[in-house]
């Protein structure tokens, strides 16, 4: 049996994991009628109350954005969060995407503390392991500060 873990997204259809030359991206929706974006992707009615469309295109959202605000999780979150043992605190940021005019949450990659972050900092999307269970790596999107050298097992490998 090989040591390679199987890598699967922790949630289906919310992001691409990227491979080779293709960088990962969040998957949102854009309304065919009014152009409103939504994350996670909308499949019912458009969130714009003045638009009656129920037809959407699945689109990759901007891979880069700016930090709207940030914090960290010093205490282990309760289940269904699957925490590492021993628990390692991590940062969370709300990131503003300029083209879509929306703010998306995400964990910040390992090895970054709140002291390394500021509102307005540029970050880019990576895909990283959220937790490991029964030989499978469950993946999630995370934000990585652009102007920092952070060693992380991201999509680049």
């Amino acid at each position, binding site marked *: 049996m090989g040591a390679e873990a199987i890598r699967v997204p*922790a*949630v*289906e259809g919310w992001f691409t994991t990227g491979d080779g030359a293709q960088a990962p991206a969040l998957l949102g929706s854009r309304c065919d009628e*009014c*152009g*409103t*974006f*939504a*994350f*996670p992707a909308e499949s019912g009615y458009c*969130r*714009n*109350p*003045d*638009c009656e469309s129920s037809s959407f295109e699945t689109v990759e959202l901007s891979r880069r954005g700016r930090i*709207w*605000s*940030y*914090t*960290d*999780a*010093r*205490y282990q*979150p*309760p*289940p*269904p*969060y*699957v*925490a590492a043992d021993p628990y390692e605190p*991590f940062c*969370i940021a*709300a990131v503003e995407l300029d*083209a*879509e*005019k*929306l*703010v*998306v*949450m*995400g*964990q910040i990659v390992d090895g970054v503390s*709140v002291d390394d972050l*500021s*509102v*307005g900092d540029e970050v880019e999307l990576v895909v990283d392991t*959220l937790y490991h269970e029964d030989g499978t790596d469950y993946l*999630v999107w995370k934000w990585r500060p652009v102007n920092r050298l952070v060693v992380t097992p991201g999509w680049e490998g």
Partner: protein
Amino acid sequence: MPEETRVAVLGAGMHEWGKWGRPFVEYGLAAARDAMDDAGLGWRDVQFLSGADTIRNGYPGFVSGATFAQALGWTGARVSSVYAACASGAVAIANARAQILAGLCDVALVVGADTTPKGFFAPVGGDRKDDPDWLRFHLLGATNPTYFALYARRRMDRFGATEEDFAQVKVKNARHGLANPKARYRKDVTVEEVLASPMVADPLRLLEICATSDGGAALVLSSMEFARRHDGGSPLVTIDAVSTVTPAFPNTVIEMPNFATDSAVVSGAAAVGFRPSITAAAYAEAGIGPDDVDLAEVYDLSSALELDWYEDIGLCGEGEAEKLLRDGVTALGGRVPVNPSGGLSCFGEAIPAQAIAQVCECVWQLRDSADGRQVEGARVAVTANQGLFGHGSSVLLSR
């Protein structure tokens, strides 16, 4: 105040807040009895019971109206049971008020009570990959304090708020709650003690984040006509407006438990943000403004969030809340005391009871009976809070 939208508050009652793990019904019953005694009315006088639900106490919690009615003894009274997260109590009040204003009943009892688990609120159990509340814990490890901390950091970045400012909110509320017999925490704290408490979600520390509590609160409401016939022995306090608004699209502030905000790509941000819209609707309904308010009970889920509320309920302009706090305007003795009860800081949150408890405090303040924490000459009071998934809640009262 427009007479046609007013209802009378004949009774207010509470079970004290704490952490005992006993059945929530027990706290609700104690509060209900307390409120009916205060009103000088009995359970047989109640025609409509409006329950605020709890989702962590099994089936009886989801049908709280009937649960409380059965516990008080079946009388055939009509009931409703509502859940609106932290706004549940206000929606229960709104339901009772609507029944009274529609002429469908004269006397209504509103009850909310909760028994809470220890530690962080976790989502309801099960493997539910289509529930954003479940997913935010699973995919992000985003607890409630995560969101409070995002707002707090934003205040620091935009307005120069400091950790000392946030700590001062806690110090103020701890002092307010010292003499409140219903409060769970009655202990003075210093800025140094707050800043020495462990960091939970930077920049918020343990003493700045509201605990989860057991508790129960109740109100007896009636038509104005019934109130004029019935002498309850206390100065008559009225509810003049109730706001249960939802956000206007696009809501550009990240809200619990969402992963993202609305997209403002089509229309730009909404003219009024969600939190400011909550009390604005109540003021408009009552035909008054924030300058008329003598005291406010706001949802201080975190110390920093109370500062956001100063601006959102119109006590000052954006970015001016820290100055209001530093000048003592919102402390007892100031122009408009905020959370004279001690707030969530001294109570902790008993979700379905909390918005009702805010109203109870306003009733006691307006009756001039809030011993040890009285706002002198209080005539108008407002509550503000916000429930998960976009439930606004504000109740405006006057004497």
